[in-house]
């Protein structure tokens, strides 16, 4: 009787710690590129403070990024990005909550490169839209590297581009994500 309880307790313990391993980072890199073919200059910003958490058991993957953290080469562009386009004072954060749909094909304990499909909801500028993209997970030495890129239509997120600069700013923005995740000790 005693042994059964001991076994049950051990199993439960394993269930809580052994299999629900999560990976995270607070210094993920997200590139934002809205350069159009007729842009006089590159419109791209980079944020190196994105938070990302992956739950290897459920395949859940979530991102959060502070809009003010995007750095642009030109200070005026950064000002316009924050003040006029994404309105970072009103909507300070962008979030993505989704799942790796083919999570079962990824073996997190074995080194290798895995192609994954990520599906979820992206919230930016107060608007939420479904996003689906292909990405890559590279498992190496107990760490996970997550890379993906996708396009978002700025009008989907109610980010207006005034007529005067309509030909200088792309209507879609390319988002490139690259995160190096470490095991989360909970």
């Amino acid at each position: 009787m005693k042994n059964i309880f001991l076994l049950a307790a051990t199993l439960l313990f394993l269930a809580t710690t052994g299999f629900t391993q999560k990976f995270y980072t607070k210094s993920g890199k997200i590139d934002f590129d809205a350069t159009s073919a007729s842009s006089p200059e590159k419109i791209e910003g980079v944020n190196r403070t994105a938070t990302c958490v992956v739950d290897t058991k459920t395949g859940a993957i979530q991102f959060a990024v502070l809009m003010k953290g995007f750095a642009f080469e030109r200070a005026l562009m950064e000002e316009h990005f924050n003040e006029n386009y994404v309105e970072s004072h009103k909507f300070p954060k962008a979030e993505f909550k989704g799942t790796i749909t083919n999570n079962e094909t990824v073996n997190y304990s074995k080194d290798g490169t895995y192609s994954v499909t990520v599906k979820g909801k992206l919230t930016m500028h107060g608007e939420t839209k479904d996003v689906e993209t292909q990405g890559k997970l590279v498992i190496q030495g107990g760490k996970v590297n997550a890379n993906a890129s996708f396009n978002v239509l700025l009008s989907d997120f109610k980010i207006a581009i005034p007529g005067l600069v309509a030909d200088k700013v792309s209507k879609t923005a390319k988002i490139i994500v690259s995160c190096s995740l470490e095991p989360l000790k909970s």
Partner: protein
Amino acid sequence: MKKLSHYCITGLFLLLFTIHLSAQDEDLLKLVGGQEKPTKERIKYAFKSPRVINSHSMEFLNPGTMDFRILHRFGQLDQGYKNFFGLDQASMRMGFDFGILQNLMVGVGRSTYKKELDAFIKYAPVRQSTGPWSSPVTFALVSGITMDGLEWADPNRKNFFTSKLAYYFQAIIGRKFSEAFTLQVSPTMVHKNLVQLQTDPNNIYAIGVGGRLKLSQRIAFTWDYSHVIIGMPDSGYYHPLSVGLDIETGGHVFQLHFSNSTGMNERAFITETTGQFGKGEVRFGFNLSRVFQIKKKKHQK
């Protein structure tokens, strides 16, 4: 039996713990968030430009940028159609301002009015911010010099170069109260080395009140008033008032306004404003500001 119940309780506890953990999976970000220390963050973009209209604003240029400014003041509106409401006459100032540090900038300019050259340095020891050790206001200091470029009125008398010079010193205390509303107060002292009349004072003290009310994302209503407290000549001179609109279009900021002063540097508009705003002695004017990035920011790749 005692032992059995002990295990039972342990098991139950662990079970609860498991449930608790899986419930948390809903928001994974909470697992890693919440430990961030609150950081000091500077309040940015109190004004679209480092000038309210005529006066310096609490805002600074970004380091590595140059602001090329073309300022126009036309003739008085009350001159009617004869002078096309003043548009037939124009006075201008061309200026180059440079952002050196986040809180330090310098600039030079040349006005057609009195062929005057001017230069200034502006520094903010304290900037409005949020977070620990933050300040509710921006405190900035401006020091400037102007040089009259006109010929000597009387070449026969002994003239000194220093007679062409005037100086101004200004403190700016400003606060961006909300995204839409910014207000600043700026006590100013102007010192003129040479004045026209013996009764005219060399030192003029004024207090400026400037502000911005954002009407939309790219358009703002601005006003800029200076009240001369000490040193106002007995007649013929008035307190300068300008009201206008800031319109931002991509890389340019247009400041369209009505003002009773022609002068476009501190000496000129604080001490030599001859128009009476209430009597329609008002001029249309515009400032065109174009910011160039002359030193690229280090791009993190």
